[in-house]
């Protein structure tokens, strides 16, 4: 890990700890105020608890031009990105995407090419619908590892994280607390529930929280769509294509719309925000990731809308290519944040539990 990023975050955290005015905003400050000195692991944990809502920056009396020059959202964002790169596995891929939007675009093109190649090379043996273009078995052969390998990689990264932050054995209550927190995106709401300071300086707005909800729940609905379809296929022998009112379609279409609209809105919101309050070096790649995710949603919707036209095979290749790219890049792009945030919230739930026990 980069020691100068940690050192700068520690310098700022020590000033915050002597002030404490921001205690009510989010999960970071109560956790910060519980310490008197900050190990690298403490800084790592604080960085991953931070959701970059920026409330503390605009409330801070010590931001530049003050000589203390506080910008905690930026300091923690930089540590966070460095964490994700340092914990990622395998390392040769770790630093390729977080700061390189172009690499994400290139990976997408390769994803298209792989799918087109697969369709050409494997094709189908005469099923109906999408399976007429690429057989179900071929899809499974491609996507099962493309899904499981990144999850395996993320599991390894999270183990690195857990060791760094001195995580304890996880209890059900820790998970419940973390999911509850994440489900409401409480750390994008500020303590008073009025949202964050993102698109218009110190104005509180629910914009980012609602848009993030759209993306997160849109993604989860799409994921649910695929999962339900898998169960229907293997358990109940019900094969695609499914009707409009089937669960896979209902989840998929609503999720696709939320994902597409959410990602578009998030990109616009990021354009309005001050890049210097995040990790400036990751800005382009974050936008690249958001557009990739949005493209997964959009291409899925277009594929559905035009599935009975001659464009379908090409659209299928494009959609599946983007899905493939998205999954494979999961451990090395902004997508990793969801896993780390959740881990940080689980660790924070443990901290609160320990404090409670001590008292």
């Amino acid at each position: 890990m980069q020691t100068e990023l940690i050192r700068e975050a520690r310098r700022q955290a020590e000033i915050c700890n002597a002030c404490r005015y921001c205690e009510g905003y989010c999960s970071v400050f109560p956790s910060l105020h519980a310490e008197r000195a900050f190990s690298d692991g403490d800084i790592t944990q604080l960085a991953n608890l931070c959701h970059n809502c920026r409330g503390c920056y605009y409330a801070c009396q010590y931001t530049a031009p003050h000589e203390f020059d506080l910008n905690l959202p930026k300091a923690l964002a930089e540590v966070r990105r460095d964490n994700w790169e340092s914990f990622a596995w395998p390392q040769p891929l770790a630093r390729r995407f977080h700061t390189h939007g172009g690499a994400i675009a290139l990976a997408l093109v390769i994803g298209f090419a792989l799918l087109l190649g697969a369709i050409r090379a494997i094709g189908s043996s005469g099923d109906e619908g999408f399976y007429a273009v690429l057989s179900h078995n071929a899809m499974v052969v491609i996507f099962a590892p493309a899904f499981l390998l990144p999850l395996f990689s993320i599991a390894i990264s999270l183990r690195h994280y857990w060791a760094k932050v001195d995580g304890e054995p996880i209890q059900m209550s820790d998970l419940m607390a973390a999911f509850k927190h994440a489900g409401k995106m409480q750390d994008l709401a500020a303590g008073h529930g009025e949202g964050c300071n993102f698109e218009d300086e110190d104005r509180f707005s629910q914009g980012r929280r609602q848009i993030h909800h759209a993306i997160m729940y849109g993604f989860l609905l799409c994921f649910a769509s695929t999962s339900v379809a898998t169960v229907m296929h293997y358990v109940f022998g019900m094969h695609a294509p499914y009707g409009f009112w089937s669960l896979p379609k209902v989840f998929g279409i609503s999720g696709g719309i939320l994902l597409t609209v959410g990602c578009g809105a998030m990109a616009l919101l990021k354009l309005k925000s001050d890049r210097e309050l995040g990790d400036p070096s990751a800005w382009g790649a974050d936008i690249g990731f958001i557009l990739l995710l949005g493209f997964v949603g959009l291409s899925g919707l277009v594929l559905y809308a035009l599935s009975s036209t001659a464009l379908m095979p090409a659209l299928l290749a494009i959609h599946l290519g983007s899905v493939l790219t998205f999954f494979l890049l999961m451990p090395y792009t902004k997508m990793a944040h969801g896993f780390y945030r959740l881990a940080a919230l689980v660790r924070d739930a443990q901290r609160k539990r320990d404090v409670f026990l001590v008292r």
Partner: protein
Amino acid sequence: MATQAEAYDIAVIGGGNAALCAAMTAAEAGARVLILETAPKPYRGGNSRHTRNFRCMHTGPLGPLVEEYSEDEYLSDLLKVTGGKTDEHLARLAIRTSEECLPWMEEHGVRFQPSLSGTLSLARTNAFFMGGGKSLVNAYYRTAAGLGIDVRYEAAVTHLELNGDQIEWVDFTYEGQEHRITPKAVIVASGGFQADTDWLTRAWGEPAKNFRIRGTPYNRGVVLADLLDQGIERVGDPTQCHAVAIDGRAPKFDGGIVTRLDCVPFSIVVNKNAERFYDEGEDVWPKRYAIWGRLVAAQPDQVGYVLIDAKSLNLFMPSVFPPLKANTLEELAGMMDLPADKLTATVAEFNAACGDTSGFHPTELDGVMTTGLTPPKTNWARPITEPPFYGYSLRTGVTFTYLGLKVDDAAQCSTRDGKIKNLWAAGETMAGSILGQGYLAGFGMTIGTVFGRIAGREAAAYAN
């Protein structure tokens, strides 16, 4: 000299809490208001940027405040710290009105949070702003903009022309040009003069040069001096101020909350001759922090040195600068430039005067005291024996000065001949009307909010 095209009913001088409360109240009453803030936008808000809470009377649970805090208890807390040097009529007005201010503040965008960790003793009396004073200031500027109030940053008021019983015009510089406006009414809310070191030195003598200014460097008392020179009624002694003992390494200006040191009750404090000079354990820190600024100011070179040992290190809030640390007292004396033999003697004498420490309790008056020592330490007196030893230097940190404009219960200013019909004052610039000496945590914001709203209401009534 350029003139201002727009016609304003009211000019508010200053851009902190009192100014904003006045401006919003006046605008809501229909007045066209201009705020002239001398600081640039990042430093707007005066000392309010550094505040964190609002001391508030309440007859039952109110917002973040628990239980009750009655008018009489509030007043008695105030009288204790001011030694009776309080205008009781104005104090009661501020206290009584504070209760209705809290919901008003919320309506105007302020959000509160539970009492901060390390400040539990204030949970009943002081409502903490979520995010601190700067977030309050931000919220008020947003609300003010919504009310159509115009704000000029880096607009330095140089002169108010007093003619008989009214202010005729206001001169200020803005964007390199001199401007003159003729509002119907003027509200002065531009703070004390503490950032003008020359003025402070005239009042205090040479010691003032060693003082730190905890808040904004923009409160230089320009408008205050201009008005006092024209014979406006004054109040307060120029050496009286809200001053605390802060870390000697604090910046000259604007160090704010993080430079405070809360370790005095668990320490011994010596001067540059390594002699103790005051009872460090007289009372809980929130009730004593405000006297230590003056105590340190009275010592040679206006400096003090706090000493603790390892067992006390985690009993107080951390401050921004780490303490000096040494394994022996001699070594620590060397680091702090104190006479080592004298320091060890002082510590030995103190240690010998300590008695049974089994009743030690860090958060309440525990009566663990010295015997036969002058000055005594009457609580938390535990011998300084356990290495490593830690030390901080202490300097006087001035928050705001009390010499100011004398106002009545309508926040109106006057001359010897009577009221000035279109001049009101609010906030630190008139706080001396209530605070003769001493300070009560969170009371500055109470004065600013209460008198800001009164000034806004009265000025708008006059202008309309």
